[in-house]
C-alpha cells in the first residue's frame, strides 16, 4: 500500500472473545470504515445462515460450466498416451480431420528444440485434441489418429525411480523447461538421475542440537498419491471471436485464468472474459488455466466456433492433478524437560513429471526449536503431474511431524498435549488444545492395548499449521441504484465454500439492510478482479474491501440524504433499512426513498484489499502472508479391530481459528469437509498405478475409494473468535487447516489403541493386519 495514504488512529479489539478482549490502537487508511465491533454486537456477521446458492444447487437451477450451451458449440475430445514413456515416431491427424463432423484438430505435444521426435512421459498425457459437432464424432475421430511409438523404459513409483540404474524422465538440459509445476515449488535445483534437489533450509547447528538431546526419535513415513475427486470435472467452454475471447470455466481463479489466457494468446486483458457461476469443487486442481484450458481455446480459434471440453471421470482421475507422494525421514531431539533441541527432515516426494513435491514447512515452523535442517527432494516418475491439493505439503508433513511428536512425548513420559504446551508458542493453539481436550475427554485416555477383547480404542490428537495468505490484487465493487437495489460485484468465484453468503452478510451489516436485499454478482472478470479460491485466502482477501466499499456507498447515500434534509451527514444513522436523524428521530426515510435522492441512476465504489493494519510478515507480487499463521487442533477417537485390521473413526473434535468467524455454519461445513477428506486420506484413498503398464488401475469412484456418508464419525466443531485487529473485517480462512491435522490425529489414536505406529498411508486393513501379525498369518 502507498505509504502516503492518509491514515487515522482507530481503536480495535484483539484477543479470543471467550477469554475477554483488549483494545489496541492501529493506524488505518482514512478511506476504510471504523472498527467493526465484536460479533456479539452485530446483526448478521457472526450469525449462521444457509449458503446463498443453496436452493439453486438442490433444485438443479445452478449453472455449472458443464451446463453451458452456446449456439453452434462444438465438442472436444483428447487423444492421450497409452504408454508411460515413449518417443513418438509419427503422428498423423489427416484421417481424423477428415472424419465427418470434425471441425478442428490440434497437436498438443511439440517436437523438441533440437528437432528430435517428441516424447510422451506418462500414460494419459494429452497428445492431440479434436473438436467436432458431436462428442461421438470427436471420440470416433480420436480413434483415427495415426500414431507410432518407440517405447522407452520407465519408472512409475518413487522407489524404483530413485534407483541408480532407473531410466530417467528428464535429461539435465530439459529441467529448465519442464512445463509441469506442482506445489510447493522451488526453482533452480540440481538434478541427479530422477532426483531434483535438495531444497535446503538450515537454522542453528543440527549436530550440536542432537548432541545436546537427552532423547531422540527417528522414523520414516510414507504417504500416497491422492486425487482431488471434484464432483464437477474440469470443464471449459471457449468462444474465440475476432476481437475478443469469452471463456466459461470451472476454475478456482477467474482473474488468474484471464491473465494466463491474455499472456498465452497475446490478447489485452480487457478483451478476455472468464466466467464461472456454480463450481463443483476444486481443492487446488482448478487453480490454473491448464493445458485443457489452452486446448479448448486453440480448438475454438481454429474452428471459429465455441468449443466445450469436459473431462470424463477417468481423465479426471488420471490427469487432472493430484497430491504428491512422500517419503519423509524425520529425526527429532529433545531435552528431558521437553524442549526440542533439533529437527532434521529429509524428504522425497514424487509429483510425477512435475516439479514441486515438497512436504511444506510444518516441521520447521510449528514448534520452537533452535536447530533445524530440512532437505527436500522431488523425484520424477512417469506418472501424471501433481498440482496443489488442500494444505499442499503440510498435510503430508503433518502426518510425519505430529506422529513423531507423539512418539517423543511417550519417550519423555509427557502427555502429548502437555508436551505441546512446552514447545508450541502459539497462545491460540494452546487454548484450542485446552478446549479440545476437555470436549474429547482426553483426561480419560488409556495406555495402548488397555481394552480387553479384539477391539481396541484409542485417542489421538494433532495440530495444523498454515500460513495466512492474502491476495493484494483483490477488489470488490458495491453499487447502489436509485431504486434502492444494492449489488456486490467481483470476479471472485464461489467454488462451494460460500463466499457469496459472506459478501451478503458483510455488506448488509455495513448498510443496515438485510442480507436477502443484497444481490451478489460474482465469478465474472467483467467485474473488479477478485482473489483466487485457494490457499485459504478468499474470505481474508475479499471481505475487507467489500466492507470498505459498502461503507463508502453508505457515506455517499447519507451525504445525499443530508443535502436533501439540509443536515450534517454525521447526524444521520441507518438501522433496519431506515435512515433517520439522530437528533430528531421522527425525521426518517426508508432506504428506497433515500436512494431516490441520488443525483444519478447509480453510484458505485470499487475498493481493493489494503495491507493488514499491523503489516505483513512478507509480501511478494499479488500475494502477502499475514503476521499470524492459521492454527487448528484436532482430537480423534478410534476403534481398531485387531482381528480384521478395520479402523473405525468414532469421533472427531476439531477446534479451529480463522480470525473473526463470519458465518459459523459455513465454517463448520468447511471443517467437516476438511476432516472427511482427511479421514479418507488416512484410511482409504490411493492412486494405484500398474507397475508393468503404467496405467492407473482405479480411475473411477468404485476402485478409488473415498469416505462416503455411511460410517462417518460424530464431528464436534469449535471455532474461536480470535480478533487480531488486522483488517476491516478481521476475517481469515479455514479450508486448509481443517484438512492438515486429521490423518496424523487418526494415526496417533491408532497408536494409542494398539501400541503400533502406522507410518504408511493409507491405513488399510491390509496394513494394520501386517503391522499386527506379519505376513501370511493363517490363524485367528
Amino acid at each position, binding site marked *: 500500500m502507498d505509504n502516503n495514504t492518509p491514515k487515522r488512529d482507530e481503536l480495535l479489539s484483539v484477543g479470543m472473545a471467550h477469554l475477554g478482549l483488549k483494545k489496541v490502537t492501529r493506524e488505518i487508511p482514512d478511506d476504510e470504515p471504523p472498527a467493526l465491533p465484536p460479533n456479539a454486537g452485530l446483526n448478521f456477521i457472526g450469525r449462521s445462515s444457509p449458503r446463498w446458492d443453496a436452493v439453486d444447487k438442490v433444485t438443479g437451477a445452478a449453472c455449472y460450466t458443464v451446463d453451458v450451451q452456446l449456439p453452434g458449440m462444438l465438442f472436444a475430445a483428447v487423444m492421450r498416451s497409452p504408454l508411460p514413456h515413449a518417443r513418438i515416431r509419427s503422428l498423423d491427424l489427416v484421417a481424423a480431420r477428415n472424419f465427418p463432423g470434425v471441425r478442428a484438430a490440434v497437436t498438443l505435444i511439440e517436437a523438441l528444440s533440437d528437432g528430435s521426435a517428441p516424447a510422451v512421459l506418462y500414460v494419459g498425457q494429452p497428445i492431440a485434441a479434436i473438436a467436432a459437432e458431436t462428442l461421438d464424432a470427436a471420440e470416433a475421430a480420436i480413434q483415427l489418429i495415426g500414431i507410432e511409438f518407440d517405447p522407452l523404459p520407465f519408472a512409475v513409483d518413487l522407489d524404483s525411480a530413485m534407483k541408480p540404474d532407473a531410466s530417467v524422465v528428464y535429461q539435465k538440459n530439459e529441467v529448465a523447461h519442464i512445463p509441469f509445476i506442482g506445489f510447493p515449488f522451488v526453482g533452480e535445483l540440481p538434478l541427479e538421475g530422477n532426483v531434483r534437489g535438495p531444497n535446503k533450509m538450515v537454522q542453528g547447528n543440527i549436530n550440536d542440537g542432537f548432541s545436546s538431546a537427552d532423547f531422540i526419535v527417528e522414523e520414516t513415513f510414507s504417504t500416497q498419491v491422492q486425487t482431488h475427486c471434484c464432483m464437477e470435472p474440469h470443464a471449459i467452454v471457449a468462444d474465440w471471436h475476432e476481437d475478443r475471447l469469452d471463456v466459461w470455466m470451472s476454475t478456482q481463479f477467474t482473474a488468474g485464468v484471464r491473465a494466463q489466457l491474455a499472456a498465452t494468446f497475446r490478447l489485452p486483458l480487457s478483451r478476455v472474459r472468464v466466467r464461472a457461476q456454480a463450481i463443483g469443487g476444486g481443492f487446488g486442481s482448478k487453480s490454473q488455466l491448464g493445458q485443457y484450458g489452452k486446448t479448448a481455446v486453440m480448438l475454438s480459434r481454429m474452428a471459429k466456433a465455441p468449443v466445450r471440453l469436459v473431462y470424463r471421470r477417468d481423465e479426471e482421475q488420471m490427469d487432472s492433478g493430484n497430491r504428491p507422494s512422500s517419503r519423509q525421514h524425520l529425526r527429532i531431539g529433545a531435552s528431558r524437560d521437553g524442549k526440542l533441541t533439533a529437527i532434521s527432515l529429509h524428504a522425497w516426494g514424487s509429483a510425477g513429471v512435475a516439479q514441486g513435491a515438497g512436504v511444506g514447512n510444518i516441521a520447521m515452523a510449528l514448534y520452537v526449536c533452535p536447530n533445524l535442517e530440512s532437505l527436500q527432494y522431488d523425484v520424477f516418475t512417469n506418472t501424471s503431474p501433481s498440482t496443489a491439493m488442500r494444505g499442499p505439503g503440510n498435510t503430508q508433513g503433518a502426518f510425519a511431524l505430529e506422529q513423531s511428536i507423539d512418539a517423543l512425548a511417550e519417550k519423555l513420559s509427557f502427555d502429548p498435549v502437555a508436551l505441546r504446551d512446552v514447545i508450541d508458542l502459539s497462545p491460540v493453539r494452546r487454548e484450542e488444545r485446552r478446549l479440545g481436550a476437555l470436549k474429547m475427554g482426553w483426561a480419560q485416555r488409556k495406555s495402548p492395548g488397555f481394552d480387553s477383547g479384539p477391539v481396541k480404542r484409542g485417542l489421538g490428537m494433532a495440530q495444523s499449521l498454515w500460513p495466512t495468505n492474502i491476495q493484494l490484487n483483490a477488489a470488490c465493487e458495491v453499487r447502489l441504484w436509485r431504486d434502492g437495489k444494492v449489488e456486490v460485484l467481483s470476479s471472485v468465484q464461489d467454488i462451494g465454500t460460500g463466499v457469496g453468503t459472506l459478501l451478503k452478510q458483510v455488506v448488509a451489516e455495513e448498510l443496515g439492510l438485510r442480507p436477502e436485499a443484497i444481490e451478489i454478482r460474482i465469478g465474472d472478470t467483467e467485474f473488479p478482479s477478485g482473489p483466487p479460491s485457494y490457499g485459504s485466502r478468499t474470505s481474508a482477501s475479499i471481505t475487507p474491501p467489500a466492507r470498505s466499499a459498502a461503507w463508502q456507498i453508505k457515506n455517499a447515500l447519507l451525504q445525499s440524504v443530508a443535502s436533501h434534509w439540509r443536515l450534517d451527514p454525521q447526524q444521520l444513522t441507518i438501522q433496519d433499512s431506515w435512515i433517520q436523524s439522530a437528533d430528531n428521530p421522527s425525521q426518517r426515510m426508508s432506504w428506497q426513498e433515500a436512494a431516490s435522492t441520488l443525483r444519478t441512476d447509480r453510484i458505485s465504489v470499487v475498493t481493493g484489499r489494503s495491507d493488514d493494519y499491523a503489516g505483513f510478515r512478507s509480501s511478494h507480487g499479488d500475494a502477502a502472508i499475514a503476521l499470524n499463521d492459521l492454527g487448528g487442533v484436532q482430537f480423534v477417537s478410534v476403534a481398531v479391530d485387531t482381528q480384521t485390521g478395520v479402523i473405525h473413526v468414532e469421533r472427531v473434535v476439531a477446534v479451529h481459528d480463522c480470525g473473526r468467524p463470519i458465518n459459523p455454519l459455513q465454517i463448520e461445513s468447511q471443517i467437516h469437509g476438511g476432516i472427511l477428506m482427511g479421514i479418507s486420506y488416512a484410511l482409504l484413498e490411493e492412486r*494405484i498405478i500398474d507397475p508393468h*503398464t503404467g496405467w492407473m488401475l482405479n480411475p473411477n469412484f*468404485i476402485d478409488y475409494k473415498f469416505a*462416503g456418508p455411511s460410517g462417518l464419525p460424530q464431528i464436534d466443531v469449535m471455532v474461536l473468535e480470535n480478533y487480531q485487529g488486522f483488517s476491516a473485517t478481521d476475517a481469515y480462512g479455514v479450508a486448509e487447516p481443517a484438512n492438515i491435522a486429521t490423518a496424523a490425529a487418526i494415526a496417533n489414536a491408532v497408536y494409542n489403541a494398539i501400541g503400533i505406529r502406522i507410518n504408511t498411508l493409507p491405513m488399510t486393513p491390509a496394513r494394520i493386519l501386517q503391522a499386527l501379525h506379519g505376513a501370511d498369518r493363517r490363524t485367528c
Partner: protein
Amino acid sequence: MEAFEWQQAASPENAASLATHTTTEAMLSAQGTRAAFTQAMLIKAGGVDLIGLMKDGLVSPVRLIDINHLPELQGISENAGGGFTIGALTTLAQIATHAGLMKHYPAFVQAVTTAASPQIRNRATLAGNLLQRPRCWYLRSAAHHCLRKGGEHCFAYAGDNRYHAILANHDGCAIVHPSTPATALLALQAQIESVSANGVQRVISIDDFFVLPSIDLHHENVLRTGELITAINLPAPHHTHRSAYLQLGEKTAFDWPLAAVAVFFAIDDKGICQQTRIVLGGAAPTPWRAREAERIIEGSKIDQNNARSAAEAAIAVATPLSGNAYKLPLLCTLINRTIMKAATSE
C-alpha cells in the same frame, strides 16, 4: 458410450431369442478392437453393471433388449412346499425388506442388505447381481486385453493383485466372484431357473451354476446365449436351520468387500450340526465352499474352539498371491465370527 437401439422384449422367451450374445461373450469377441462386437444384441435387466461396461467402452451393443418390465420375472412368492421363489427381476431393495425372507434366510437378506448402495439396491436385480462381471481392474480396463476377455495374458499375477483370489487362483485367472448374495445362495442351496428361446426351462442347482477358470477361463457361470434366469428358488425352511452372513470391506458402503462369509447349519435338538455349508466370498473365482471347515463342524456341537479350528482349516489351504496375504487372517476371523453368529442365532 456408443449409440445403441432399444427394444422391449415381449416375454422372457422372446428376449432369449432376440439376444445374440451374453454380455460376457460380447466382451470376449472384442479382442481389443472396436469393430468386432458392435453387432451384439444384449439383454438388459436393471442395467447397473451393463451400462457401466458400456460407458467404459468394454462392450458396445448395437441393441439392448429390455426385460425390466416383464411381469413373469417379478415378485417373491412362498411355495406350497414352504420354500420361496424370487423372480429374477426382484430388486435387492425388495429382498432387503421382505419379512418372510428375513425370517427364514437371514444370511441371504444380510448379504443383500450390505451389497452396493441404497440407490443401486433400488435398481439392481437379483439375477443381474448374480451375473455381474468380476471387478478385476484389469478385466475392467479397456487398455488391458486380459485372458478373461480373450487376450493372451493375465496382468494380475505380476501386477497389483491386492483384491484378487487366494483360493483356486492358479489356473490362469485370479478373479474373485463379485456377487455377495451368491455366497448366501450357495450356502442356502438355492436353485436357479432359466428359460431358453425355444421355451425350454431348466432348473440348475447353484452347486453347478458357477464355473472355475480351470473349466472355463472366460465365463463365470454356465448360462449361454439364448438363456436367461427367470427365478431363484430357496428350499423350504426348517426349525433346525441357522444361517448368517458377514462381510468386511475398506468402505462401509458401496464397495465390494475384501472378504465375505455365508454359513448354513442344520442343528438338531441335541445341538449337533447335521448339515454344514460354509461359503467364502472375495476369496475365489466362484463363491467358494470351505469344505475343510465344513468337515470340522459337521457332526459336532459348535463351540468357540471348533469354530476357530474350522476357520484355520479353511485358510490352511489358501495360496495367496504377491499382494493379498492379508486376506488370510481377515477371512479366518470372518469365518470364525460367522460360524459363531449363526450358531448363536435363534
